[in-house]
């Protein structure tokens, strides 16, 4: 059903405000990106509102509650070799997740260079780092549960501490878990060469970048959770 083969009029946009105006007042498309990428961006803005609401809700109940708030650096401390290290597990988890963003970026680079094997390997590495993040979170949950922290109460102070902790880290962990599955399926498709022939400009390797957008977003959200829940 392809009829018109004329080039997309705004494929080489001007820069700055002029380019912005040209993009928005042009026909056919407002952004010179594939549909999937535009949709992922819009979804991520929407998801920002989800996490924004979660974090705002957490901060509000933290201010509202009359009980003292437990000290995060004590609650999340680990004793390793006789030494108590505050927030050590969280630090490792954060390091792992940020590292996974690095491998993700390398995977996108390899995808655009059509280095399929290396791209798939880096995607798998990213997924592995993500999975280990979830595993460490599961360890953290079970440690806290063993210490008596429940959604409805805990021995250290305000009940909202446990409630917010399980809800926010649970929802973020769910995002990471979905991301791991997403990345593995993309890796399989890269390896199978699904993105080779089809599409207009250089195959469909943009799909790797779209997955990368999601993954970087999940990392970025973690930074905010880290700052607002663990460091505050």
């Amino acid at each position, binding site marked *: *059903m*392809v*009829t*018109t083969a*004329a080039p*997309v009029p705004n494929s080489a946009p001007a820069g700055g405000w002029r380019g912005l105006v*040209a993009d*928005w*007042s*042009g*026909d*056919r*498309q*407002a*952004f010179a*990106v594939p*549909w999937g990428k*535009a*949709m992922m961006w*819009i*979804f991520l*803005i*929407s*998801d920002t*509102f*989800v996490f*924004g*609401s*979660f974090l705002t*809700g957490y901060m*509000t*109940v933290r201010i*509202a*509650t*009359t*009980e003292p708030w437990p000290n995060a650096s004590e609650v999340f401390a680990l004793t390793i070799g006789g030494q108590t290290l505050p927030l050590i597990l969280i630090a490792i988890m954060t390091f792992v997740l940020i590292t996974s963003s690095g491998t993700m970026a390398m995977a996108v680079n390899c995808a655009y260079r059509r280095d399929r094997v290396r791209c798939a390997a880096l995607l798998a590495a990213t997924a592995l780092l993500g999975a280990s993040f979830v595993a460490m979170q599961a360890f953290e949950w079970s440690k806290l549960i063993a210490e008596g922290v429940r*959604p*409805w109460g805990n021995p250290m102070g*305000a*009940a*909202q501490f*446990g*409630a917010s902790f399980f*809800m926010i880290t649970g*929802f973020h962990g769910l995002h990471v878990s979905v991301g791991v599955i997403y990345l593995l399926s993309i890796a399989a498709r890269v390896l199978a060469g699904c993105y080779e022939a089809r599409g207009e400009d250089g195959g469909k390797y943009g799909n790797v970048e779209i997955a990368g957008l999601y993954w970087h977003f999940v990392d970025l959200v973690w930074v905010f959770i880290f700052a607002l829940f663990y460091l505050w």
Partner: protein
Amino acid sequence: MSDRDLHTEPHSFWTKYVWSQDHKVIAIQYSLTAIAIGLVALVLSNLMRLQLGFPGAFDFIDPGRYYQYVTMHGMIMVVYLLTALFLGGFGNYLIPLMVGARDMVFPFLNMLSYWMYLLAVLVLVASFFVPGGPTGAGWTLYPPQAILPGTPGTEWGIVLMLVSLVIFIVAATMGGLNYVTTVLQARTRGMTLLRMPLSVWGIFVASILALFAFPALFVSGVMMLCDKLLGTSFFMPAIVSMGQPLAHGGGSPVLFQHLFWFFGHPEVYIVALPAFGIISDLISTHARKNIFGYRMMVWAIVAIGGLSFVVWAHHMYVSGMNPYFGYFFATTTLIIAVPTAIKVYNWTLTLWRGDIHLRVPMLFAIGFISTFVIGGLTGLFLGNVSVDIPLSDTYFVVAHFHMVMGVSPILAIFGGLYHWYPKITGRLLDERLGKLHFWVTFLGTYAIYMPMHYLGFLGMPRRYYAYEGYEFIPASAQDLNAFITVAALVVGVTQLVFLFNLAWSVRHGRPAGANPWGATTLEWQTPHTPPRHGNWGATMPEVHRWAYDYSVPGAARDFIPQNVPQEAGAGGEGPVWGGQV
């Protein structure tokens, strides 16, 4: 990229009509489901009116049932009928046809969106059949009462309601991503953003609002589910119930109200903006005149959309929030009247000295302006803190929001259905039945809601099951209530005429032809009516002008479709500018 065939043409019954990825079929699925659940809400409202008009005459309506009717009526109308019908129904049908695309950009996601919506509706309906019945917490579901014993449906009803809302939000997100991306990225050649019909603009901005507002409802739903099922205390303060302190404590009920209304106020405009757009197109088409101030109309839609995110706490003047907030939110609320008034003036000026054809869609459009102005003006009263406080728990508020976001969007939906039905089925709805339907509905609306304004001033509180024995309410108020009930029943029954018309005209309506109204927009220029798979046959349409070239001086006919080249007639870009780059 908009000429790409997005999915192969289906041939079996199941892939064509059930698991369909075609935006036109999905639109019809969405609309029929929404109308079906909307009928439930209509019956519930008439049951409520029976109790209020003739208290005690129907002894199956006990206080608990009454509150369940109130709650389910409100939630169904706002979310499952209006939102779903405007975005899922009109949005799905009109966006690809009006911007000149073969389908939505992600047809499979679009199909999923409908099935998730249907699941949400089924979960909601299931709550009528569980022990304890549906929730009776009021459509705002305010905690703590929503999940504590004493409110009907705290066993299962509230859980199913929240689960259903969460599923609905997933569905609305999948749909909304499609609508926004399609409008931004899949327009046909020549279709710049500032050449789009206002219907698309309204639905487009409403979809953006939905994507940014529903997350707050999603989060508050998840948190309340935790409070109900896990015993957390996000929204639950320390409470003594029957002399016993509850296990909850330390939470913030006002937090729920903030989250709820951060969704709830944009929701008003999620419903209103598509109505604005549809009304603009109806008025322009049936008055044979270009819309007055097209660019101003677009900017007004965008401005209202933006402002709708900073007015939410005007629903909370009596909630006990910081009184200084009222100052800010009253100011923003009154500012939103400016772009809204621009729209009303522009509709009126479009009608002025137009070649007005009082066909059924036009009647509904003019009716919309009338009810919307009444509802909008009372909104100015209620936006002011000092006026709102004495009126806020009275029937004045009931009358206000029913006029502005109940009746008005419904009239827009009716107008839209009468207008686009010929494109969907190839046949016109019956004109005489349509006029009967319009006049009874329109006049009935005033018969129902005008007296409610007065009852509100008398101080009649809303949300009450019965009004006997209150000295400040004169006995004559009961007569007015009985009158309102009779009017509501008449309007309710009249909707059967519409349903009959809808069903009967599919086969027996007058054949419409491709463009019965002489409209300029692309959906009327399709090679087939109803449009087939892929919408445009072999060649994509090319757009050469804005959507409102009606009665152009010197042109052969009183309209020039958007896909007619500029040389073939004057007109083209409207009075000022059309965004040629």
